[in-house]
């Protein structure tokens, strides 16, 4: 963005929105929107409390374990689907269905199957993240140049070599794109899990603050959550740019 010939750093528009928020907040139009400055003051207050740190830990734990499984299962499954017609035809309808299904509706079933604890929350997180990772990894493999694979085979590559030295790297730009979107979906998954399954972590804080109309607290937690997922997404976008030099010509 350029203003009066000056090049503004990225995200400058956020400042404008923050200013607008502050003004609307100061006007006290609605209890729902306290001034942004007041929210940050609250954030400083609760940010160091035991309750908040515990919530952050619980959420982070479920989030990282959930996305870990989504990646470790999703990437190989997606690559297998891209490599093998049969596996693809068996799994693709399911992946597509789950990608667009209202997963929230499945949460009660998970509770019945896996109980009311961390396990169910992690599984919910994984379920939110995994499908797009599978689909993207698959798409990454499908666009691989056949002659790269033939090259590896002609020099005697074992199936394991072909997987780790060709398929994985050739599909990496798409895989990273899938992981980035998967992480964003996982944030949604972990909070929904914490709200519906067992009221812990940030989910519990949201519940507590919103039912008591503590809007400043509510927004403070939300901003923390936004910021964390924004940073994660940006880190992955940075990784994606690192491999983009070969994405255009595989």
């Amino acid at each position, binding site marked *: 963005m350029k203003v009066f010939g000056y090049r503004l750093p990225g995200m400058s528009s956020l400042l404008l929105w923050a200013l607008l928020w502050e003004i609307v907040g100061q006007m006290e139009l609605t209890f729902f929107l306290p001034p942004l400055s007041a929210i940050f003051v609250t954030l400083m207050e609760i940010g160091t409390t035991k309750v908040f740190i515990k919530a952050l830990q619980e959420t982070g734990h479920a989030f990282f374990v959930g996305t870990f499984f989504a990646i470790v299962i999703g990437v190989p499954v997606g690559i297998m689907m891209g490599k093998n017609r049969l596996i693809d035809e068996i799994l693709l309808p399911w992946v597509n269905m789950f990608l667009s299904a209202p997963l929230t509706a499945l949460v009660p079933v998970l509770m019945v199957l896996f109980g009311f604890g961390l396990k169910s929350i992690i599984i919910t997180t994984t379920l939110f993240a995994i499908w797009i990772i599978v689909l993207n990894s698959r798409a990454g493999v499908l666009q691989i*140049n056949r*002659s*790269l694979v*033939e*090259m*590896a*085979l*002609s*020099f*005697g*590559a074992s199936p394991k*070599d072909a997987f780790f*030295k*060709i398929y994985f*790297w050739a599909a*990496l730009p798409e895989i990273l794109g899938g992981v980035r979107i998967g992480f964003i979906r996982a944030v949604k998954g972990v909070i929904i899990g914490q709200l519906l399954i067992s009221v812990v972590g940030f989910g519990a804080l949201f519940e507590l603050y919103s039912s008591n109309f503590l809007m400043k607290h509510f927004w403070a937690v939300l901003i923390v959550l936004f910021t964390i997922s924004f940073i994660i997404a940006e880190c992955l976008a940075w990784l994606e740019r690192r*491999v983009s*030099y*070969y994405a*255009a*010509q*595989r």
Partner: protein
Amino acid sequence: MNNISTDVDNAVTVRNVCKNYDNVEALRDLSLEFPRGQLTSILGPSGCGKTTLLKIIAGLLKPTSGEILVNNKPVTGPGPDRAFVFQDFALLPWATVLRNVAFGLELRGVAKSEREAIAEKYIKDVGLTDFEHSYPHELSGGMRQRVGLARALSVDAQVLLMDEPFSAVDEQTRRKFQEDLLDLVKNENKTFLFVTHSIEEAVYVSDQIAILLPRPSRVSEIIRPSGFREKEALNIRRDPEYLDIVDRIWASLRTYVE
């Protein structure tokens, strides 16, 4: 054992090979012999099955029937006795020139320091010193094919399979490559199987030219230029026999080109 030519030592023998893709009959009963230490071109109209034949010899495709012998042993899959040079180079875009050239050796389990030493020698041979740490997207088409060639040479296979290796490089580079190829055939004791679209190129570089007919392909003619092979590279294109053969091949192929 082979009743057709007991006196010539063949590195590769193709015997009665048929290949069908679903309902396309690409090769029908094709037999061809590739004498050791020589360069044989495979020439034919587009879509006649040249790539198919080369991939069957490489062990990348299975023939529907018939057999391939390399050093008198039947081919069941890819093997260290053959190396492939690809029309589209097939370089790893995420790896440097050094790793690309060493990749064949890497897949064969050669230790890193050893394979890099070998790779550096061939990088020097193909004239890419100083580009070891460049990536393929930083190279020109001609330089990329040099990488592909260095990779095939560094595994030291006896048979080199080249599928239109020069078709994606510019005319001047191509002429240089053709001259280099002549040196390579002379100096390395390897057998070259060379697919090309260009009649002039085939006649210029070959000890033997196999002409294929359109699908389903068989060998229609084998031509062995004899007079100008020993001549200076620069004089070949002026040799009467060279010009004769080019004309003769065009005469037999022109009916198949629409």
